[in-house]
């Protein structure tokens, strides 16, 4: 496998002013993010709301400027492209390779455009083709996601949520991309429709040789679709591991808490109340010193309050975690008492 995209020391901060005379404050939405995406894999980014996963996705695709670090795209043809250094015109050709699927199918399709024009828009902007060829390409892409040819003249309001999301997928795929960033692509959908869309994404990945960055807060979905999982907390990557290893034995206490929060569909196996994570996610402008998670971690010790742990490989495996005690802590995985595989199969 070759690396398709690498994120190096990426950071993003916002400056906010709470009042007219209040001092400027800096909010660190992303701090020193390092990760790589291999060609052909599905990389999931998980974390609770506000942890920066959507910001990361938007910074990677350059929908908003990052404050530091680099995002480098490695096209198959060779020649690395530093996406973060490009201006609007320079990045345009690469927009064909890296596409996005949005969370809310209600707001991501222009209500004033017919489905045909919505899907044709990227082709027209990039002047890929026109006329008959364009029509054929749009209709066949829509057919791949299960939208029949006689519906292409309708407006988005005539479709259900699942259908709209599939139209959004068609819009992302019509340019024949290499990397697709799916930002909470299924979380606005009903569970039954989620399964349908996830299976569609899997099929399309196999058919077009796609690579996915799958941003989600739903570990059940992530377990089903992802090859590797990046766990984020407060703008940091706290764990980066192959899906099975993470679910088997997480190495970061935050990952453990996330896994524990997975609902178990079988009442007989439910063991009392779940342990809740203590406290609230800290305000970004007032981030704790030391390990970002120490305010809520039940294993926290003095060292965690002063020294910030770096992301490092655990015992030489593919599993990386940012915890001082990653090797020694006996953290609970999800497989032992609640196999989550096969939920959507």
């Amino acid at each position: 496998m070759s690396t398709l995209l690498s994120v190096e020391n990426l950071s993003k901060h916002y400056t906010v002013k709470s009042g007219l005379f209040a001092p400027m404050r800096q909010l660190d939405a992303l701090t020193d993010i390092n990760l790589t995406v291999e060609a052909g894999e599905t990389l999931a980014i998980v974390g609770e709301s506000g942890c920066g996963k959507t910001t990361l996705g938007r910074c990677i695709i350059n929908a908003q400027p990052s404050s530091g670090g680099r995002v480098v795209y490695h096209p198959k043809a060779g020649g690395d492209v530093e996406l973060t250094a490009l201006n609007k015109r320079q990045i345009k050709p690469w927009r064909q390779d890296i596409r996005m699927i949005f969370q809310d199918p209600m707001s991501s399709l222009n209500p004033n455009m017919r489905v045909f024009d919505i899907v044709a828009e990227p082709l027209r902007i990039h002047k890929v083709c026109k006329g008959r060829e364009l029509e054929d390409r749009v209709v066949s892409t829509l057919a791949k996601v299960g939208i029949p040819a006689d519906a292409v003249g309708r407006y988005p309001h005539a479709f259900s949520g699942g259908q709209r999301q599939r139209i959004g997928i068609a819009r992302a795929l019509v340019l024949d991309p290499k990397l697709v960033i799916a930002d909470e692509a299924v979380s606005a959908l009903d569970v039954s429709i989620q399964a349908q869309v996830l299976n569609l994404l899997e099929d399309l990945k196999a058919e077009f040789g796609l690579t996915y960055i799958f941003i989600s807060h739903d570990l059940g979905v992530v377990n089903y679709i992802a090859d590797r999982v990046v766990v984020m907390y407060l703008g940091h990557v706290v764990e980066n591991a192959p899906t099975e290893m993470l679910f088997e034995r997480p190495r970061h206490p935050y990952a453990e808490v996330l896994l524990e929060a997975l609902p178990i569909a079988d009442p007989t196996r439910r063991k009392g109340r779940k342990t809740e994570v203590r406290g609230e996610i800290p305000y970004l402008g007032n981030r704790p010193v030391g390990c970002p998670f120490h305010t809520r971690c039940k294993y926290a010790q003095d060292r965690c309050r002063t020294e910030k742990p770096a992301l490092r490989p655990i015992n030489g495996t593919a599993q990386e975690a940012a915890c001082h005690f990653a090797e020694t802590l006996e953290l609970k995985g999800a497989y032992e008492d609640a196999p989550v595989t096969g939920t959507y199969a």
Partner: protein
Amino acid sequence: MALDTLDQMATRPKARAVRESQLGLMWRRFKRHKLALVSLWIVTGFYLVALLAEFIAPLDPSAYNPRYTYAPPQGIHFVSTDADGRWNFGPYVYGYKTEIDPVALRRTFVIDEETKIPVQLFVESKPYMLAGVIPMSVKLFGVTEPRAPLYVLGADRLGRDLLSRLIHGTRISLSIGLAGVTLSLFFGIIIGGFSGYYGGWFDSAVMRVIEFIRSMPTIPLWLGLAAAMPKDWSALQTYFAITLILSLIGWTELARVVRGRFLSLRTEDFVTAAQLDGASDWRIITRHMVPSFMSHIIAAATLAVPGMILAETALSFLGLGLQAPIVSWGTLLQDAQNIRTLATAPWLLVPGICVVIVILSLNFFGDGLRDAADPHGR
């Protein structure tokens, strides 16, 4: 195969029903608002009158006749009984006779029910240009007898026909509303659009300017500007100057509406999607953003028209807007300024009734449009 289907869809009339456009949906919602629908017809009627003023007005609005000063309204009657008690159908008006007030020795006109002057449709008249472009020599209605009086709504101080003046005034007053709003819309969309799409310091600056302009009392501002107009300007120049003065305030409201729509749309996912498609700003604005708020803008503009009409009326009424040879509702109401005239010739207030009807109708129509344009409304 794909193409066949597309071609079929274009030609097959049945598919139309399924593919209802945003405008079609809007019209369906609008139709449910009965008051707005009635208002739409009233407004359309008034604008039709304004467009066809020369054809509909029976007389020349500036033709005076000192024999009939303050002649009361004749009204149009349709059924008459002749000497044998039989009914005759056909429009006619009564003539006038003069009475001398024994105390004040003042001459007054009273309706003379003995004389009947028939009114005919499509009568020959002196040649004129309809709306300044189409040469015509037929009026909608009039009298054929030479020198017979026709004052359906009465006459003014100089014996001019109020109805004809009202019809010509409708043209000026309604068009100044439209012209003012068009001008405001032009400035509003450009300034508000820039402000909302790019945001930042430009947005803050524009908003502060708008707040400043809106904090000024409008009537004194207009008075000052109108007073600064050179007296030797032609009627047309004055007309455009007044339009400009009115839209000086008017654009602020529309700029705010446009800015608000831009701000809320800028964060919509479909706009982000277009940005990520690599679309240019121009394409995003014209293809993705403007179509989705055009209906709101039209509704807001419609609601701004009555304000313009009222402002023109107020300025002209005070003698600072349009000046005498131009006939507008405001200049017509100037005649109704003193109480003695009103006591003897109350029909001079009819332009005021027109103002009320048109303003109310435009407001109801605008409300209906706004409700119909709101996708979240019921």
